[in-house]
């Protein structure tokens, strides 16, 4: 796991993590462990001392009912599952099965109508708006199915947005946005507006934005959905690389081949977990697979 992920275990201690991150950029020798290996794929992934092994994501009986006028749609009907630190999990299911709904709850973008969601041990329902904003900003990188880029802003301005809310200064924001865009292979498109980019390129801008704060948990809703097979391969390699650096990755797909890149597949149907929701607790399962890009089973 990355040094950053170690801090997810103690969210209350993470006041002003962005300031820490900014400081560490200018002072790599500091004992501060956050962000030291930001975007550095070759760095080892040591266990952080004091980190209590356990679930990053812990859902118990989570339900989500949408009310639209007279209709009620039960999108999730009691989902119980756990995802551990450093796992690479694929969520599969037919269209309309509740995958996106589940992902939005995992990303703290929506709240369940019943059940509890513990993020690194903390019950999300007890968090204040400010705490939630910080979780979304620093601890989770979310890749939306519809990208959700701001059309009026250049690619790099879209990527820097989370850093703006992290309170990082302008020069550092630009530098880190450029790094993140380089990671997704878009160095030559930094000054393009989303409208001037292909669907695949927009997807990669969205991924760069999710990476830029160096979050411990990356949630991607069909990240390969708009990509051709070559670009999809590249995206999977990137996610595999990020995973190899210790990040916990959850992605939604309905492509069995994409799911193969993950180390566990959770199947969902009509708002219920079919199988794979038990998490990496079962004996014999490799919770932290070899940190090599080619280490897919």
């Amino acid at each position, binding site marked *: 796991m990355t040094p950053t992920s170690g801090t997810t275990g103690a969210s209350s201690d993470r006041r002003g993590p962005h300031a820490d991150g900014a400081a560490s950029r200018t002072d790599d020798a500091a004992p501060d462990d956050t962000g030291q290996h930001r975007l550095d794929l070759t760095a080892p992934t040591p266990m952080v001392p004091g980190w209590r092994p356990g679930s990053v994501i812990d859902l118990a009986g989570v339900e989500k009912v949408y009310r639209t006028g007279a209709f009620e749609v039960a999108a999730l009907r009691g989902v119980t599952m756990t995802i551990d630190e450093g796992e690479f999990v694929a969520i599969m299911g037919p269209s309309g099965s509740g995958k996106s709904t589940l992902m*939005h709850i995992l*990303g703290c*973008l*929506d*709240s369940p109508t019943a059940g509890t969601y513990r993020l690194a041990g903390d019950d999300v329902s007890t968090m204040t*708006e*400010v705490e939630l*904003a*910080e979780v*979304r*900003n*620093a601890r989770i990188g*979310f890749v*939306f199915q519809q990208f*959700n880029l*701001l059309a*009026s802003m250049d690619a790099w301005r879209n990527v820097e*947005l*989370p850093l*703006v*809310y*992290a*309170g990082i200064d302008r020069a550092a924001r630009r530098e880190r946005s450029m790094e993140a865009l380089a990671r997704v292979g878009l160095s030559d498109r930094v000054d393009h507006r989303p409208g001037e980019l292909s669907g695949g390129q927009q997807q990669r801008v969205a991924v760069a*934005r999710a990476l830029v*704060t160096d979050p411990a948990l990356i949630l991607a809703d069909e990240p390969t959905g708009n990509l051709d097979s070559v670009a999809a391969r590249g995206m999977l390699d990137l996610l595999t690389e990020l995973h190899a650096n210790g990040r916990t990755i959850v992605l939604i797909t309905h492509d069995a081949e994409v799911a193969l890149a993950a180390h566990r597949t959770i199947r969902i149907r009509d708002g219920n977990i079919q199988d794979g929701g038990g998490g990496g607790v079962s004996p014999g399962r490799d919770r932290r697979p070899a940190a090599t890009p080619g280490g897919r089973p």
Partner: protein
Amino acid sequence: MNWLETLRTGLEATVTHRLRSGLTVLGILIGIAAVILTVGLGEGAQNQVASEISSLGSNLLTITPGSSTSSTGVRGGLGTATTLTMGDATALASHTVAPDIAAVAPTTSVSEVLTAGTSTWTTSVVGTSPAWLSVRDETVAEGRFITTNDVADHAMVTVLASTTSEELFGFRDPVGQTVDVGGTPMTVVGVLASVGDSSTTNEDDQAVVPITTAQDVLSGGSDVVQDILVSSTSSGTLSGAYQEADAELLALHHITSPANADFTIESQQQVLSTATSVDKTLTVLLGGIAGISLLVGGIGVMNIMLVSVTERIREIGLRKALGATPSIIRRQFLVEASVLGLVGGVLGAGLGLLGAVVLPHFISDPIAISPVAIVGSIVIAICIGILFGVYPASRAARLAPIDALRSE
């Protein structure tokens, strides 16, 4: 996220949405300029009346013969009766009888044809005493005014007002020249200084002669005067002067009941009070129109703001998803709304002031610059912008990010 960054984000958003920002600013601008101009027009009219009153003298009383209402309730012949005499004027001038009266000028005026060389000009010829100059607050530009000796000698001298002098003598110096007044040659001894335009009387077009001369030559040798102008020692003693003149004249005319008075005393305020109240009504009316235009402008701004925020709820959702707290969103929209309100307010005030300076050249009505209207309308514009820009934004900021993102 600090205020500077918020300010930058807010400013950036106003620039990004140029058309929308422009329309908002335009709405505020027009509303404010309209308020400034309409209120200014009303106040300008009021100021004009006020300055006319003061130019006529706030300590001036005019005594005319006849009563405005006879004892039988039938309106008498105001100004046509011949009940005022030189004796009345002399009595009022006494400081022991009337200590609050500063000066008394009996006048008799008649319209005559004046001839100088080949120029002829018809104007009002006023017969009066030397006190007239101070009572009417006039000054002599050239030569001298008529003197007590002129009055005593029934001297054939005249003092011309500036326009009259110009019409008869062009730009030549008229002092010492002879002018024929209704068939009687008189020597011009002075010229009055111009007092400028006034919509009620033209004080720059008249000829002044000794009252005795006027009685001899122009109105047929009687002791009767047309009216008596009285000035009080100050504007504060005006009512004292009024009572003294009233009591003295009643006594002189042997009238016991004031209801039977054969004369009328009026102050200039009374003469103009009707005009003033009409102008006050005008101001209220114009103020109402201004208020309505601000309201309409405000509704326009409100509409643009609401649409703008609604269109941007997705943006709000995204910003929240990326880590913005509701208060940061609120601040961003507060900055945007304030900037639009301020820019619109300042431009509107500028346009209003420009109009207040330029328009009077075309419409001949004065427009007053009212600081209250300027500050008030800018404050209202900013408040409208904030209320209708920030309120919906802060509501959207409380939504779950995904609900905001999904909104259409």
